């Protein structure tokens, strides 16, 4: 083997993953979100072709589920066919979302696609003009819950001039992520690969520089929590090392912001601050300028505008206005939510020190906040009827402290900030 290779490392495409936590009313936004994961795949293909990659490495979770929608299978097959036409091979390791046991339409993938075995670590040699260039080692998930340490089965052949490991794994058993194919960085280093192409963690991250152990991250953020850049890693690898380049593939960028309402005394001022945040998002969408964004904003701080915001429908009207403005931008910004976390411009300590009705109110809230059991029971008693109407999948645990604090502020605001009737 000799020479260098250029390949694109991607993972966690989660084709056709349903977006959660977003309330997209606008048809344009809905269409963009629905097409986002498949669109990211298209962008990935374009990146491979434009960068003249030798091959594409997909480190798991191409599909979002074991029973992926048909259109995703067709989309993936078509994407591979485009790469085949461009002479670019595709190496796929299955992950926990699309293990080998997944149901498939049985669509025949083009000849340029190789799916790593789920039985053992498989070594595949990439050749150029009949000459071996590098070896790729990979293993697919057989089932969704593979908890064995797959990395331990990887071992570089001494004859490999260049070796690439492909694995869908939770390195270091990170909390918040499924404990699938867990391993440590030491396990990975022990395999003596020149590059580790990992999948499973959606946020791009380089765990090690030597050798490069890389989570390329998902190609498209899937929910409001997956903010910022999402894409793939273009790798140029030779005997001397690897050069990495991040390329964005997301068709929609998720963004979140906290806007302080301190010093803002009315709705107009709040609107101005929100529009400024929208414009900031338009200007800065990570490494993908020109990409539409879904933005969530929390309004915080003690503000003179709190009372105005607390008026019925005031926030809804403001949100509708901001959404319209965001959609008129290029690229558009869908303001998914503006959450009012402002507090009335009331000195709670001063109120608390009094002996009037407001003091009674604050005192009552304080006593609840000081007793978590009582707090839970107090909020739970009110929440139980309404939560009982929800499906179990929609149930959530209300943040009793947050609710009581906001309820206290709301009541005080109505009592003290309301115009005299």
């Amino acid at each position, binding site marked *: 083997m000799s020479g260098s290779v250029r390949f694109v490392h991607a993972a966690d495409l989660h084709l056709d993953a349903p977006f959660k936590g977003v309330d997209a009313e606008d048809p344009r936004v809905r269409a963009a979100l629905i097409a986002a994961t498949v669109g990211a795949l298209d962008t990935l293909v374009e990146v491979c072709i434009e960068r003249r990659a030798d091959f594409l490495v997909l480190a798991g979770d191409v599909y979002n589920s074991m029973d992926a929608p048909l259109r995703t299978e067709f989309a993936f097959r078509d994407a591979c066919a485009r790469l085949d036409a461009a002479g670019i091979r595709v190496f796929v390791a299955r992950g926990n979302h699309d293990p080998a046991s997944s149901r498939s339409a049985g669509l025949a993938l083009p000849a340029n696609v190789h799916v790593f075995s789920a039985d053992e670590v498989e070594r595949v040699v990439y050749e150029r003009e009949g000459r071996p260039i590098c070896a790729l080692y990979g293993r697919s998930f057989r089932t969704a819950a593979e908890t064995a340490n797959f990395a331990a089965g990887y071992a570089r052949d001494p004859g490999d001039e260049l070796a690439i490991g492909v694995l869908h794994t939770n390195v270091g058993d990170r909390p918040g992520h499924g404990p699938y194919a867990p391993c440590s960085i030491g396990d990975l280093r022990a395999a003596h690969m020149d590059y580790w192409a990992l999948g499973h963690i959606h946020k791009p991250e380089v765990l090690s520089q030597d050798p490069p152990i890389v989570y390329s991250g998902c190609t498209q953020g899937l929910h409001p929590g997956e903010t910022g850049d999402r894409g793939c890693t273009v790798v140029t690898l030779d005997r001397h090392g690897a050069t990495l380049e991040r390329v964005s593939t997301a068709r929609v960028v998720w963004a979140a912001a906290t806007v302080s309402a301190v010093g803002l005394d009315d709705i107009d001022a709040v609107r101005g601050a929100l529009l400024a945040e929208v414009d900031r998002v338009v200007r800065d969408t990570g490494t993908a300028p020109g990409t539409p964004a879904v933005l969530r904003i929390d309004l915080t701080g003690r503000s003179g505008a709190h009372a105005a915001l607390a008026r019925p429908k005031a926030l809804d009207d403001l949100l509708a206005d901001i959404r319209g403005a965001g959609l008129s931008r290029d690229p558009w910004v869908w303001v998914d939510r503006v959450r009012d976390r402002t507090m009335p411009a009331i000195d709670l300590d001063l109120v608390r020190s009094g002996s009037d*009705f407001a003091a009674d109110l604050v005192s009552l809230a304080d006593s609840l906040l000081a007793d978590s059991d009582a707090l839970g029971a107090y909020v739970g008693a009110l929440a139980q009827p309404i939560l009982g109407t929800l499906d179990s999948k929609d149930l959530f645990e209300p943040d009793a402290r947050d609710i009581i604090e906001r309820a206290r502020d709301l009541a005080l605001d109505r009592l003290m900030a309301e115009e005299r009737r």
Partner: protein
Amino acid sequence: MRLRRIEAVRYGRLAGATLGDLSDQLTVVLGPNEAGKSTYTSLVRHVLFGYPAAGRKEPGYFTGGDGRLARLVFEDGDGSWVVERSEGPHGGVVRTRALAGVERPDLVDELTQGVSALAYRIVFGFGLDDMAAIEEQRAAGDDVLSRLYAASAGLRVSPHEVRAALEKDAGEVYTPGGRKRELNTLLAELRAVRTEERSLKAQTEAYSTDRERLSLLREQLPELRDTLERSRAELTALAVAVDRGDERLAAIDTQEESLIGLRQERRRLIEELDAIELDEALLGAGPELDALLDEAPLYIEQAREIAASEASLAKASARVGDVVGRSGLDETALSMFGDNHDDASMIEETREALQRLQLQTDNRAETVARAAAAAAQARTAAERVLVPLGIVSEDPADAIAERLAALEALEASRADAGGRAARSFDAPSLILLASGVVAIVTGVLVREWTTAGLGAVLVVIGLWFLVRARAGVPTVLDDDARVALRVLGLEQDAGTLDLSRMRRSLEAARTAVAALEAATAAHDEAVRDAALARGALETRMALWRSWLAERGLSPDLSPAGAATALASAREARMARQTESELRDDIARRISALDRFLERLAVAATPHIEVPSPMTRDALPTVVNRLRERLVEARARAARAEELRREIRPADARIAAEEERLEKARADVREILERFGLFEGGTLEDLRLRRHAAERDEADASAAFEALVGEISALEARLEQGAREQRSAELSLTEAGLVERVTDAVDRHLVAACAARLLADAQQRYERERQPEVVREAGRLFSTMTQGRYQSLTVPLDSGRIEAFDCQAAARTSDLLSRGTAEQLYLAIRLGLIARSGAVGSSLPVLMDDVLVNFDPERRTGAVEAIAQLAEERQVVFFTCHPETAQVFRDVADGCTLLEIGRIGP
């Protein structure tokens, strides 16, 4: 701050009225019915809180014109201010101005801080009709007590209202059992979306079956494809072989048929060639005959032209005879006359000369006649002059000259002797003289000699008279004179006039004689000229006749007749020339034609029948026949050549076809041998094997097509499903709905918790703070009822107030008598006001005859309680009962009494 005056500028029936000054503490206003007591109470409230609009239940106290206008005057230690409310929208326009002290534009807000219009009406400015309102409002959910308490705590709104609003907010999201709430709507939508998702999921399950079937079919596909391809390959080979064998057999049949045809054709060509008889002699003479045939049209045309020329010749001969006959000339004349140009010239010259000479002769004769006449006239004129003078001499001119000489001598004599006679002009003489001169000149110019002669006579006469006139004076004659007189034939006494007359006569005579001589000379000359002209004419005629004779023509022939004869002679000669030329031409043509006919006859005789002798008329027929014969011979020769050319390639084709036939037979043998069919094998055997292979291929193809069709159908179905985005749409919709549900639950919980906190705080208030008000009210109620009732309670969960009597028996307000209940309500009001602290502290408490239903004892107790309140707050009590006013006066020291009268007439 205290209310000092109430001024009704325009306010119902109180227009222009003023009430004041009011006391800082207690003022009792006593007035009869219709004095405006209730109106003043309303006025204060309206100025502070706004005029009621039209249509409200309470009286509006409307006025016409500029609308309502009322004022309140407040005072404190810093100054005094007028609060004025005028008519306007939203309760009217309120203005505050300082009468003393600094301006306080927010005075109304300060005064009414924490007190709503309703609270004011219920607690601060009430009448008998408002007494039960506290309890009624509480029963209706409007807790005036808590409202007042909230106001005392600096809260702008009632906790009760806030709580209601929050509960409303929470209820809009969710109410247990409530329909069409926001959450219920969202949940309904969510359920609908999930139902559809489940439906799609079931559909997906169907797709899964399809996928599995598709995978199985794809596994079967390669084997079936191989089988099909093998059977197709065998079938193709057999089909190709059979087709090729069939093709070769068909080729053999075709080639055999072709050979038969070719051979038959060759035989036919040879037979036809043999049947053709060639006229070699004719073909050999072809060039010569062609040349003759080429010339023949020319001679045929010449024959036609000869016939035409002969006709023309006959016409020319007839014309010659006709012309000669018409000319009347004999052959000699025709031959001699007009044969040259000189004859015509001669004839023309003669004609012109004779005409000219005849004309000249005629003119000269006329001139002679005219000259003779002139001479006769001149002679007569001369005789008329001469005779009177006595001159008859043959030579009158000499006689006249002699006499003139004598006259001149006489005149000279007289001139010498007698002097000169006076000259005078004789006009007639001058006229005659001038006329004569004119006539002479005219006659000479026009060669009118008679005129000229007459002119001369006139001149002479004129001169005579002129001379005679000049000789009018007689003279003494001398001898010469006398001689002269005698010569003249005059008397001795002849005077000058006579002399003049004589002179004129002589002069006239001399003129006449001269004229006569001239006329005579002219006549003579004319006669000579006429003779010469006649001679010339005769000479010319003689010459003409001689010329005619020389040509044998009649001497009497005039030049015109000669000219006609000349034309006839020329025409006759031309006709004869034409005739001659035609005759020569015909002869020449006939000669050439005859030579051609001879040549043609010689050349054609061996080949066709030719008349002998050969005539011009037979020429076309012979030519045509010869040409046809020649064409026919040549056509046969050409056909024979063509047949010979066709026979050669036919031989070659026959040879090639025989070779191909043999090759095709060899191919068939090779095909059969390739499939093991050697001796005895036929193409039919091969065909049977192909039919078997076709059945095999059809079976394999059907199986393969069925498989592929099923795969295609499955793929199409799956692809159709793949294009379906509904699931993704639903997922997104579900996500949005879940978000909204979560948000709604959150909002509901926050609002519900806030309402709950408020309720709990209210309960704490009622439990911990309300008793002070109730205790105070109980104390006042006890005072009013002289201890009949000891205390009060206001249960939290009840709208009713309970009173406890001295036996601790509780009675709810609805069980009290009217008077007692009113005392209870008054006590509560007074308790509220007493414990409301700073709330409404500057507002006056106005009571409108609220004690009418009290018995005297309790009235006194009530007055005492009111008096106590007045120590803290300003109280204005309106009554129409003097005894009540008296009670106030008795009980309350310093009480101010104002009396007002009835309004209007």
